[in-house]
């Protein structure tokens, strides 16, 4: 009988207990994987190649203040700047205020947008159609699938921030590398209904000529407008996105504390099970010792058992989480674009193994140390 066979036989001796333990650990690991996934999508996401080359220029005080449109030419003239596009967040409402109908709408310049965002794939004929229709819009393919939009469909957006209601026609469907949950339309449309916005922009997207030039461009832009009436704040697109997450509050501490609680719970559950099953087997340990098994090999048997239980639980939990997150991501909303990566699963499994090891070490150590005569006399 090999060591692995001995471990697996013992692990499933009390099937009900093992299954309950595995399910309990599995549930906790599912949660842990879920939290790690959220964490990674917030803080650990690597900007794509194009994104690493892009910057966002906004008003220094806050996004709610506008910048003059002529800043675009000024920014464009700076060294290392390839393209600049103006954007205005519209903040309108589609259908009703239910969160599942929420997506972002940006007023922009159809001639320039795709120069700054070359990774958005849009058929050339659709781009041309959009550029020729002032009331046209292009939509993210994810949104198009979700709402069953087709090219040519009408799209009515009620203005909540601006006193303008948009009646758009979908002229194109673009495919971005990562879901954007956004639609783009011609910003002039807002100006027509709200002339005060004419000559003003919400923010600028800037494409630098290389990722290395990004910090220099940021400095140059802010320097350019330092003493202007409306100073700017320029940061990489990635930093800009992280800023939004920061506003949600202290998410890091929130996730960390729950992760700790979860890990501690698994530790308790696992230690509990191992303590129960080891106590039952005190006499067996004595027999094994009589047969010539060393202390270390007995320790290995028990620890191996706990680790394999935790590992199975972890595997079930993290794989389940993979499918749960996949299902949630396809629903749209706040989970869009989230994915459980193999690295996340590996991290969860490592935690499972460590917890399994930690939980079983103390009871196993005591069991392995037991005096043969006492052990044989033990009534479990």
């Amino acid at each position, binding site marked *: 009988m090999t060591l692995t066979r001995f471990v697996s036989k013992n692990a499933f001796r009390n099937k009900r207990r093992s299954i309950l333990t595995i399910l309990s650990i599995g*549930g906790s690991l599912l949660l842990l994987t879920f*939290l790690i996934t959220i964490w990674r999508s917030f803080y650990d996401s690597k900007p794509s190649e194009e994104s690493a080359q892009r910057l966002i220029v906004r008003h220094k005080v806050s996004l*709610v203040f506008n910048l003059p449109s002529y800043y675009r030419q000024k920014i464009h003239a700076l060294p290392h700047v390839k393209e600049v596009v103006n954007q205005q967040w519209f903040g309108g409402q589609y259908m009703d205020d239910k969160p599942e109908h929420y997506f972002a709408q940006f007023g922009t310049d159809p001639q320039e947008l795709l120069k700054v965002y070359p990774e958005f794939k849009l058929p050339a004929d659709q781009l041309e159609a959009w550029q020729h229709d002032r009331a046209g819009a292009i939509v993210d393919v994810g949104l198009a699938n979700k709402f069953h939009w087709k090219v040519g469909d009408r799209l009515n957006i009620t203005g909540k*921030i*601006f*006193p303008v209601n948009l009646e758009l026609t979908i002229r194109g469907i673009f495919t971005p590398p990562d879901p954007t949950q956004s639609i783009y339309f011609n910003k002039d449309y807002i100006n027509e209904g709200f002339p005060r916005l004419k000559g003003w922009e919400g923010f600028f997207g800037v494409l630098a000529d290389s990722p290395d030039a990004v910090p220099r461009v940021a400095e140059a832009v802010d320097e350019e407008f330092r003493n202007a009436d409306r100073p700017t704040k320029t940061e990489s697109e990635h930093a800009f996105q992280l800023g939004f997450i*920061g506003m949600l509050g202290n998410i890091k501490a929130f996730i960390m504390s729950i992760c700790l*609680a979860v890990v501690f719970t698994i530790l308790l559950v696992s230690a509990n099970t191992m303590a129960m099953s080891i106590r039952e087997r005190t006499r067996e340990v004595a027999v094994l010792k009589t047969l010539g098994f060393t202390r270390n090999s007995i320790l290995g048997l028990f620890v191996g058992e706990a680790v394999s239980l935790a590992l199975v639980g972890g595997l079930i939990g993290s794989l389940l989480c993979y499918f749960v997150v996949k299902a949630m991501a396809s629903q749209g909303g706040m989970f869009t674009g989230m994915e459980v990566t193999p690295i996340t699963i590996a991290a969860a499994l490592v935690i499972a193994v460590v917890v399994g090891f930690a939980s079983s070490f103390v009871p196993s150590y005591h069991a392995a140390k037991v005096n043969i005569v006492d052990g044989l006399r033990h009534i479990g």
Partner: protein
Amino acid sequence: MAIPLSYNVRNLRLRKSLTAMTALGIALTVATAVFIMALLAGLGRAFGSTGDPLNVLMLRKGSDSELAAGGVSRDAMQVLKDLPGVAKNSKGEPLVSGEDILVVVMPRKGGTGETNVTTRFLTPLGIEMRPKIHLIAGRWFTPGQREVVVSSSINKRFEHANLGDTVHIGKGDWPIVGIFDASGTAHASEIWGDINQLVTDFERTVYSSVLVRATDPVAALALKNRANDDQRLELNGLLEPDYYASQTKSGAPIKVVGWIVAFIMAVGSCFAAANTMYAAVAYRGREIATLRVIGFSRPSILTSFMLESLLLSLLGATLGILLMLPFNGMTTGTQNQVTFSEVVFSLQMTPVVVVSAIVFALIMGVLGGFAPAWHAARQDILSALRD
């Protein structure tokens, strides 16, 4: 006949470590649930307690946020002052306050980043219309001066938000001359300054909002409807409490993630509780059989084990609530999804939260304990005695 409860208590005490570990597992789950519920309760309180039912908030037609572009014109404000049903103060001035909202970026304490803070500009009349707000340090801003007062939560949560510090708004530095206590209302997330100075600095031609105080609730409704129906004014009138209540939706992300977390943790804890109870039943096979022989019925054994499981979860609930007690009243912030600035609120372990937590734990106890208890009650007497 029922088995006395002391039997269960003694059994739990007999296997101390097993009981303690299971209860601690449940406690952590309960603590997480309490944490999430207390966050939501605090957020609900911040918005639920803001606004007087006699106050009507006037916004630009089509907008439902004070931060929206465009606003209430000076002319409309004059019309509002003369409407019937508008209350007057002791000096005979109509209680109508034109206000402006700006957002400034401030660094949080402890280097956790910058965030938007709502800055409200108003007149002393506007302060008078909010009797829940009172000064705790310094003085109110002087009209016509670049001066601001900050709420006590802003003072605690942000760098450079003490008396004597300055806030940079638009063209100049505005010194902080006072700190006010907002009694847990949404104004706890705000900085207040003088509107006339702001109008001069920013050349604002419209107000973000106008707050109108009615003489009685009927007049408040009438004022709201009057404002909405009058095409000339182009206003969207809202009762002040309704406006703030609609902002509770800012807690939606916490709610969604929080409930998923609590649910999965609860499932895990149910299995753990079941495990412990199965062990309890397994150890006591002979004992249970003896009880049956003495004459205790199957239902009474089932009840007894269910009670034991409930006791275990109750212990866990108590532990969990105690664990969270030090965090009661802790202030934290999230983003207000209506004004895009930080809303400060505190963890509130209200009676509802505590009772829900206990019920939550008891449900775990029932779900985890039923199968083992059923198993105990169905045991075959003869084979169990022989064991």
